[in-house]
């Protein structure tokens, strides 16, 4: 599974799956924290919809971590103050980049979790649809 889809599932899950997957790696491999989880910022680049040009919206606080496993560096980045999650994401990233055998079984778990998250978000949105306006044209 590619990084974009994987990180989206792991972050939207909130951290429990990331913790579980990272623990299977730390149980079997040594890891070196190159950068302990630390706070930083990401500047957000936006496209405005009036003239389709780019501008900077402002910065968002992130937590970032870097680890090395089997001579491969992994990076974890997440919005907010999430030190544990950033570290777990970095470990998982390193595991995928090093192509560790443990990762072979992860895709199924991630896809299943992704389905649950989509269903949950769809329901959340459908709940908001209760406030959708049903216009009726009045006779005058």
């Amino acid at each position, binding site marked *: 599974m590619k990084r974009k889809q994987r990180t989206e599932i792991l972050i939207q899950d909130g951290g429990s799956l990331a913790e579980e997957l990272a623990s299977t790696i730390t149980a079997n491999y040594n890891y070196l924290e190159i950068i302990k989880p630390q706070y930083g910022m990401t*500047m*957000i680049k936006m496209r405005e919809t009036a003239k*389709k*040009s780019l*501008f900077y919206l*402002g*910065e968002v606080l*992130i937590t970032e971590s870097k680890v090395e496993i089997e001579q491969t560096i992994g990076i974890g980045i997440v*919005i907010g103050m999430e030190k544990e999650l950033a570290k777990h994401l970095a470990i998982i990233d390193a595991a995928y980049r090093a192509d560790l055998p443990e990762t072979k079984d992860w895709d199924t778990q991630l896809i299943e979790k992704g389905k649950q998250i989509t269903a949950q978000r769809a329901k959340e949105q459908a*709940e908001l649809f209760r406030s959708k306006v049903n216009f009726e044209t009045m006779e005058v």
Partner: protein
Amino acid sequence: MGYVAVKGGTQAIEASIDRLKYDRLKGNEIVEINTILATMRNLVDQVMSEASLYAPFLAALAIKQAGGSMEEAVFLMRAHRSTLPRSYYSETVEVEEMFVERRVSASFKDIPGGQLLGATNDYTHRLLDFSLVEETLEENKQWLSDYQKELEKIEASEVHYFPKVVDYLRAEGLFDTYPLDNTSPKDVTKESIQFPTGRSERLQVLTRGQTGAVTALGYASLRGYGQVHPTIGEVRVGDVPIHVKHPYEKNQDEEDNFYIGEIKVTEVESFVPVPVKKTNGNEELEFDIGYGISFGQNETKAIAMSILDQCLESPHGEFPTHDEEFVLLHIDSVEATGFISHLKLPHYVTFQSKLDSIRQVKKGGKVDAD
């Protein structure tokens, strides 16, 4: 006369800071950060927007520390921001990917996807609700439980992404279309703005402007101190995903980017009628689009920004709201409140020099009789 260094206020300053702490503590109540986060969502959003730093927890802490003073909370956030490294720039955020929780149009009742009211004060009675004085957690839990039971019946399998109202009008040929402009934006936090400014600089300054200042100037334009009076094409509030590229990997495709989470924004497009002279000499009415956006849910600011965006796109010497120097240099919270509040700090030397001048004039008998 030059400035002179003075001392002697150290003890008084320390005592003043103790007094500030005393005033915060003397009521024997503690407001938890989580309480602010859970119950003062709009205040947190406003602080983040004016500070130009999206960090709800830090904004809530700043509100607590500042005793509820907006200007102080924004100042604290800006100061904290300066201590943090900027590690990444995001990939371009496209608002079509927004998880929409509110979306309305004042221009059309039937917009593709429909109008979604979401959570808003717009339709509430503006009467004080005295039942909140006696509010209890138990009652709230019961209300939430009942509400969630009602929602249990709702089923859905996929998330809907809403098209932009303006794209629908562009497809009909009613509005001008623009190709994607990928010119690198300028960053006003790295380089001071020079006039005339670029569009990216204007939008960045407007979106981090003080809510009250942006609203006041937008309102002034509507009242006649400007030439923009729009109809709102679309206001949308929701979460947009943020992605960043890997810092070292080469030949990445988009699927190798990091998803790092979502931020809530309010985005507005307002439609502004503009008379345009055609080649045949006739004047025809066309529409320009004003663009506004703000961190969090802050619809008034985003609408006012869309007005000012359009004002500054069409400079006009007669109106202050169309003067980019007037607008852009006076709406920043830290700059405006900082400059105004510095006036109460010691100006003994400069004031004494002015007094000396007046005394000299009076001694010379050169003062007018009246």
